């Protein structure tokens, strides 16, 4: 088994009375893709943002490469952390500064970190990054509005890669893109992962894409992880009724089966304080009370 790169223990992120994330624990292993799925408002994006220190967490502990993320840090430590962990955002229209060229956007990171000796090396670095995400060196001098949505997302990816991070949080990186462009970006992410040994936390609501890209999947609902397991297990042997309901709602490009498909409705059951995570199968966790999990598992 690969090394743990990230450990999340009992993470809580409350905004006033809203418990956006309410006590979740999971690990991410080096080189894997962990998919985080759930419907709007389930806390999946908040989880990603807490991990990358965009929020001060309410409670819990996040350890990255053996170090506590939210503990006191010197400037040097912070810089090192920022180098190792990067984020790709959902909206490629909102996440790129319209007043900066693609080259400036990509180079901002290594300008701050002083990762080149001279202008020539800086230019060379920008060019290599652009090429690695399927754009041309000449694109460096263009502004964001001169690019299509898919190309903008490639710039966002190049920016995330610029500091040579080991861990990337991708928050709905393809949901704003057209179907044919989604596939291009997903293929690019997978190819970069292979070449650079990247670890991804892939946050999305599109379950078929998450199944495709992830090694393991965590299903979130109302601030809790209700089920976590390998992508195969989650899709073929779901245990939690919410996971079953989610899976039954995905429409497939298959009209004959669609004509007879029945959605499994999910009735929310209040869980008391005695609910906890149960390992029903090695590496496959289900959240509920002892009695609930026993009942779900035998059905």
């Amino acid at each position, binding site marked *: 088994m690969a090394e743990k790169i990230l450990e999340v223990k009992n993470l809580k992120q409350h905004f006033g009375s809203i418990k956006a994330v309410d006590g979740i624990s999971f690990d991410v292993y080096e080189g894997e893709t962990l998919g985080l799925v759930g*419907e*709007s408002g389930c806390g999946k994006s908040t989880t990603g943002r807490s991990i990358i220190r965009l929020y001060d967490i309410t409670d819990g502990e996040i350890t990255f490469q053996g170090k506590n993320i939210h503990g006191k840090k010197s400037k040097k430590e912070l810089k090192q952390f920022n180098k190792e962990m990067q984020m790709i955002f959902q909206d490629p229209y909102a996440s790129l500064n319209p007043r900066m060229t693609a080259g400036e956007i990509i180079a901002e990171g290594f300008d701050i970190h002083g990762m080149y000796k001279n202008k020539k090396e800086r230019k060379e670095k920008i060019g290599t990054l652009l090429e690695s995400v399927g754009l041309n060196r000449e694109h460096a001098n263009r502004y964001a509005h001169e690019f*299509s*949505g*898919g*190309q903008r997302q490639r710039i966002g990816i190049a920016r995330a890669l610029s500091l040579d991070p080991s861990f990337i949080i991708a928050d709905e990186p393809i949901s704003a893109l*057209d*179907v*044919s*462009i*989604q*596939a*291009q970006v*997903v*293929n690019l992410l*997978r*190819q970069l992962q292979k070449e650079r040994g990247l670890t991804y936390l892939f946050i999305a*609501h599109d*379950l*078929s*894409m998450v*199944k*495709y890209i992830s090694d393991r999947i965590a299903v979130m609902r109302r601030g809790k992880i209700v089920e976590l397991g390998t*992508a195969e297990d989650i*899709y073929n042997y779901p245990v939690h009724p919410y996971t079953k*309901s*989610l899976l*039954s*709602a*995905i*429409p*497939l*490009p*298959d*009209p*004959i*089966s*669609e004509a*007879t*498909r029945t*959605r499994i409705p*999910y009735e929310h059951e209040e869980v008391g304080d005695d609910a906890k995570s149960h390992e029903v199968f090695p590496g496959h966790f289900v959240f509920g009370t002892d009695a609930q999990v026993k009942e779900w598992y035998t059905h």
Partner: protein
Amino acid sequence: MGETILEVNNLKINFKTYAGLVQAVRGVNFSLEKGKTLAIVGESGSGKSVTSNAIMKLIPQPPAIYAEGEILFNGKNLVTATEKEMTKIRGNDIAMIFQDPMTALNPTMRVGKQIMEVILKHNKKASKAEAKKRAIELLTEVGIPFPEQRFKQHPHEFSGGMRQRVVIAIALAAEPKILIADEPTTALDVTIQAQILELMKQIQRTSETSIIFITHDLGVVANVADTVAVMYAGQIVEYGTANEIFYNPKHPYTWGLLGSMPDLDNEADELLRTIPGSPPDLIHPPKGDAFAARNEFALAIDYEQEPPMFQVSETHFAKTWLLHPDAPHVPIPEAVRKRIEGYLEKNDEVGSELGKGGD
């Protein structure tokens, strides 16, 4: 063949912009039958929303120009209809559901009143009390619990899925013959999407409404459509029954769309098929086949001449030179073929388990 309620013939729509004339819709033909659903599928900029808005004449002129063609609703040409005539048709005969239910509703008005407004406007004889009764009935029909209490609430007190149900209730208020739904579930979560799709199908069964469903999601298309029109660069490039489009696609663009969608049985180590590049600029549409530059199977003629619609079956058409009798034989890409075979096999198994048997 059922009764045709709407027919669009050679519709061309241009937009005047500072950069030049954008040819957004470039000769679209389709027909809609009573009680059936036509899905128009395509990517952003393919002209699918312009086409549907054009039917309702909701695009401002200028900048839009109805350059050519006709839209026949029960034999009447809407392109030449006056604004007064259109006001009667909108809502009464043809109603629309939009993507974002928050912007479609008035945030300052109780939802009950918004539904009543439509009822009273379209049925001048109805009293206020009757309209209120009907509005509550509609809220019940679209599956909103506690309709009497909900009637008095404002849109912000509803969740996204419930809001979209209100929008549907408003669209149904005047008992339209055609419902145009422009990405009605795109902003919703999958479980809510499934509920809304079920609701629309149930409404169609009880009231024989015809539906034009605009979407980019092929899964949704397979779920709702009787007939499918695949649009690319302002044109319909493939047209057929849902079974024909999904099990026997002929156009390379349709292959590309089907291939770029991951499915749950995808092998994890295979890359998704992609359509390289991006759609053409419609100020200067390319010569020949608009898809040629992105088409790995493009022939020399694709860069010279625009292909006609070739007929595959009585109901199935595709606009690609690959269907010309002299064209080289290009089989459907392996990955797409395998997937279709997988679906059909699975359906056969299910079919025989149910005692129906496959065909």
